[in-house]
């Protein structure tokens, strides 16, 4: 089974301002990017199940063709740097995405 980490050159997370956490998946080539779009691989339900967040906290999922990339953005559990923060820059929240698979093909 093909994993996202096999076909993406970049899978990363980072703050997008202090309220949002954004995930970037940059595919190695146009074909895998198109395939991910065709089967709607990165969707709100997937993000909710990977991160245990509510659907209303998934802010946006956008495909960006110039970079063969899909981006998902969620509401941060805490405003960046608030008491109880675990990752001020939001740079280590990407891991659950690594093992996402392209169904059973």
């Amino acid at each position, binding site marked *: 089974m093909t994993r996202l980490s096999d076909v993406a050159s*970049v899978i990363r997370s*980072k*703050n*997008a*301002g*202090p*309220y*949002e956490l*954004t995930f*970037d998946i*940059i595919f190695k080539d146009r074909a895998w990017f198109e395939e991910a779009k065709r089967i709607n691989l990165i969707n709100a339900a997937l993000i909710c199940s*990977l*991160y*245990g*967040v509510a659907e209303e*906290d998934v*802010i*946006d999922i*956008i495909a*960006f063709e*110039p*970079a*063969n*990339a899909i*981006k998902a*953005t969620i*509401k941060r*559990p805490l*405003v*960046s*740097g*608030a*008491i*109880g*923060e*675990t*990752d*001020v*820059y939001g740079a*280590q*929240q990407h*891991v*659950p995405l690594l093992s996402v698979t392209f169904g059973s093909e």
Partner: protein
Amino acid sequence: MMGRPAMKVLSPTAILGYGFPETSFAAAMGLSPDVIAVDAGSSDPGPYYLGAGVSFTNRAAVKRDLLIILKAARERGIPVLIGSAGGAGARPHLDWTVDIVREIARQEKLTGKLAVIPADVSTSSLLDSLADGDLIALPPGTPATEDDIAASTYVVAQMGEEPLIAALEAGADVIIAGRCYDPAVFAAVPIHRGYDKALALHMGKILECAAIASTPGSGSDCMIGTLDDTGFVLETVNPARVCTVASVAAHTLYEKSDPYRLPGPGGLLDLHETRFEQVDPGRVRVTGSRFVPSDGYFVKLEGARPVGYRTVSIAGARGPDFIAKVDEIIAGVRARVEDNFRDMPKGSWQLIFRIYGRDAVMGVLEPERATVSHELGIVIEAVADKQDDADTICSFARSTMLHFGYPGRVSTAGNLAFPYSPSDMKAGQVYAFSLYHLLKVADPVSPFPFELSNLEDAA
């Protein structure tokens, strides 16, 4: 329109103080740039630096970068623009940077006009803005409150290119600005000279992280943007790095939620029609970006307020029985602390246990809840209204956890391994973001008046 000579903007480093190879800088100067610009700041390192008025970069490292940049630029007579000085770009950060600039000017006998542009917004004017409905929340952020405004130690607004252009028109050779919209320092000179605003801002958006948009990316190396009337070309000067369509387009995604629509002061950069094109193996040309002015002029505010004092203790655990029961043990320690200090007002302190090796990195977002590590890193953290109280809670929680008795305990000499003596560290005052909102302003320039002097003037 055609025939205007292309102009070159040099971005030596992603953040002032992050450095750049001198060989790269010399090669970049060999291409005769028309301006050198650096974005010195970010809100990414969190609220502390803005709230406390402290830079997240190191003074010696900032001086090293500034010395090389200022000497070269004054020799050539080209302008230097530094935005978001001192990291957070409030008055103390600005003063800190200007002090370094004057020290360099004295040492190197540099002359020229220096413009300093503060970005601070007073809390009294913000309370008026709140009352007038001119403070707009940025979802998922919540509306601003009087309490958050009044408690803020520093509030800055991100200026656009207009206040920088006003300083250029007054003859500034070197501009040290407070908090700026990141692309503004790169776009100001081109826009002032009549180049397209959308292209200048988009070029600035990529140059602000210097060579991060190349491959292999680096925040500590030079990048050059060459702007003409229909587009711009990005290139590195280090033969070890190249700009590719993939590296440049990928950077457009970075730290933003929608790569097609990039809002900033006065409007929106629209990239729906943007084309990225490989001109040769190392250079990328970008065309088609558009600027859509907003109805009214809005600047983004950043504010921080103190929320208490912190003390932390770092420990490790290796015992399998302790690791298996760590949640019960934490609950037991917490109950002992609450009981022992029940005279301390409820809500005046918080106790946090961070369990590295389980869920300390991802917290509530962690999908793998079962502990599998053979050892755990434990950070015991207390935050309280007073430093003494934070010390007390942390110290008591640490000693209680060290000697906590639990069923099946075999290691009765102590549950924790401490790497340090003293085991507890005061982390000082803690800040939180209090404002991240839009402020409607009557015009782009008047909130950001510049202060003009000579580089050679005494401070």
